[in-house]
């Protein structure tokens, strides 16, 4: 009987997936000039929200081997772009890390004003040395650091940003951004592109200019 339930449930999931894809706009059914872009965003399942997360008091180990306070790392006068990764991941994380890499390129001269923060969700495996090798693979520049710690610390960090899913294999694509000097976080669920992130950072800048 249990198997029947499993099967029925799975069928419901399948039906849900089908319903989702049928809502996606197709390129030819509209004259809206932004249709293609919107469809792309829909296909990337992007959802934006603004949330005032409280950064927990937490010690993490930076990829240079130093033990640092997460709060201090985030409050150093730069805007923050944060994600959660693990180096053994072959699906979502390489994509997310590539987006960070492209973002660094697009930031150009402004690169020094933005701190890219990648926190491992597999800290037992991801030693500082392993994180450095991973960062090299994605040509991480000076403003992009990777962090590890104990399993407990990593879980606390994930929980603080509503990113904990019980296990690294269940993680979701997620990017979090915050303006320099603090304020609420912009939470982007889904596959944010480098341009999406750049637009958020530009938004922070114009917000600061208008103050």
């Amino acid at each position, binding site marked *: *009987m*249990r*198997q*029947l339930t*499993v*099967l*029925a449930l*799975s*069928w419901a*999931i*399948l*039906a849900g*997936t*089908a319903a989702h*894809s049928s809502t*996606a706009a*197709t390129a030819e059914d509209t004259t809206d000039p932004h249709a293609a872009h919107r*469809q*792309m965003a829909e*296909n*990337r*399942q992007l959802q934006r929200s603004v949330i005032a997360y409280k950064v927990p008091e937490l010690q993490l180990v930076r990829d240079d081997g130093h033990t640092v306070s997460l709060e201090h790392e985030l409050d150093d006068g730069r805007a923050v772009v944060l994600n959660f990764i*693990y180096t*053994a*991941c*072959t*699906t*979502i994380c*390489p*994509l997310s890390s*590539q*987006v960070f890499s*492209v973002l660094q390129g697009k930031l150009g001269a402004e690169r020094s004003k933005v701190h890219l923060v990648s926190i491992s969700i*597999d*800290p*037992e*495996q991801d*030693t500082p040395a392993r994180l450095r090798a991973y960062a090299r693979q994605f040509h991480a520049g000076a403003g992009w650091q990777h962090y590890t710690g*104990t*399993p407990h610390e990593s879980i606390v960090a994930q929980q603080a940003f509503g990113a904990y*899913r*019980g*296990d*690294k*294999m*269940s*993680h*979701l*694509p997620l990017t979090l951004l915050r303006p320099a000097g603090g304020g609420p976080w912009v939470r982007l669920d889904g*596959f944010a*592109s*480098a341009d999406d992130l750049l637009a958020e950072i530009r938004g922070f800048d114009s917000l600061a200019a208008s103050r």
Partner: protein
Amino acid sequence: MDCRVLIGGLLLWSALALAGPVERPTPVADTGIGKAIYRTGHLPDGKPIRAQREPAMSISGSTAACMNCHKRSGLGAREGQTAIPPIAGIYLFHPRAGTVDNLDLPFVEGMKPDRDPYTEASLARAIREGIAADGKPLFYLMPHFALDDAQMTALVAYLRQLSPTQMPGVDNTTLHFATIVTPEADPAVKQGVLDVLTRFFDDKNHYTRSQGPRMQSSHRMMFKVNRHWQLHVWELSGSSSGWEAQLRARLAAQPVFAVIGSTGGSHWEPVHRFCEAAELPCLFPVIDAPVNDPNDFDNVYFSGGVRLEAALMAHDLLGRGALRAGTRIIQVYRAGDVGEEAAPALRHDLPATVHVVEQRMSAGTGKTGLHAALAEARPGDVLVLWLRSADLAELGPVPPGVRVVYLSARMGGLEDAPLPADWRALARMAYPFDLPDRRRVQVDYPLGWFRLRGIPVRAQQAQADAYLGCVILSDTLNHMVDTFVRDYLVERIEATLGHRVLTGYYPRLSLAPGQRFASKGGYLVHFSGLQGDRIVADTDWISP
């Protein structure tokens, strides 16, 4: 004959037939090229394949391998909330099935039975341009691959033959498993583990086998036949050089779906290599010196064993500054035991400047050999004892001036290591398990199970591991419904192990691509209490 195979064959045939005039028969393609593209993202000549999601986001080579997302089985996976669909042939080419009653494919999570079947042409378009069979864009995670026609033909041919078919070791009534026993297995461990495996299989067959009709959702789909679990004990003989041939003969004579809870000693490499070559899952063997190769897939271990202990010791020696200029490290071990694997590992984990001396004793020299080896220690030396409990009990007096002693929990018997009192006061043990107080509830469960069934506890940790391995195998197979594919078994364990609540001797278990040791660290502990019969952690959990 399994009805699935027949249906699969019919589906394949009908997909080709439906394609009719526009579809030419599949040319004979070299699946070696397809396999290389699928698994490695390279062509057999080493040239990387290229793909991109957006103009600025190109990937190539191993990061573009199909297997990264769709898995080696081709049955897909779940990545968070993203269901990555199966791309093994029958899932791509099966005709549209509108309702669950028409579902006639082995169940996997991301399957889309209500989609029009792909043709060779529409599949090529999907792979190159990211357009699904129905003309809609595929999910963003799917890159667009730059493959020429020959490469595409080879890849599609590979996808076709990737389809789940009748797996060796599985028939309509029975699931066959093996456990491998090498001549090096400790007799108590071997007997204790075999007791657990045999009883687990008996229980499984007693509780789940029903005489009633098969469960089925329709006249076509039959699933979850209550198959009998049969265990085959493959006892090897002679020297390790002959084991691989013996294993090949055993597998040929009696195909099995997977290997579970095997036992052995210092030579595990031949068994490990055999399982990789045969692409046969070799799950949770109860051994002290597993093989560590991040490129391997089929061998899954609970822990890194004595090599992990060596790494813990090295971490501790370097971290606490126990190594002064001129400090010697003396490693004592027996020929033919796993200390022979552990000692070079510790040497490797220490800087080349550290003076490491090895005292390798012949196997049968008893107390005399042991005392002769220890007599080499000079004041200030660090002693590392890769010794079994029989040797630990016979250590005699501590050599004069020796203040630092390390020993192996796995070899010495964990907290029950029979160390003489003055050794006990000095000893620091590498302990790649959860601490006794914390794991009590976890381990009480298998102990109660053993007690109820009258299974003697001969080697508690080994037997608890064997039990946990069986439970993981059983749980995973339950969730696989009827999709008996060896690679898929390993992939499901990899994906779900981190969610387990009952983790036996280990604080947590998890795997990932390239991770084949489920528990990744340990403590350094010392003996405490009035009788020295308690252990206390000197460190946090360390993952070296």
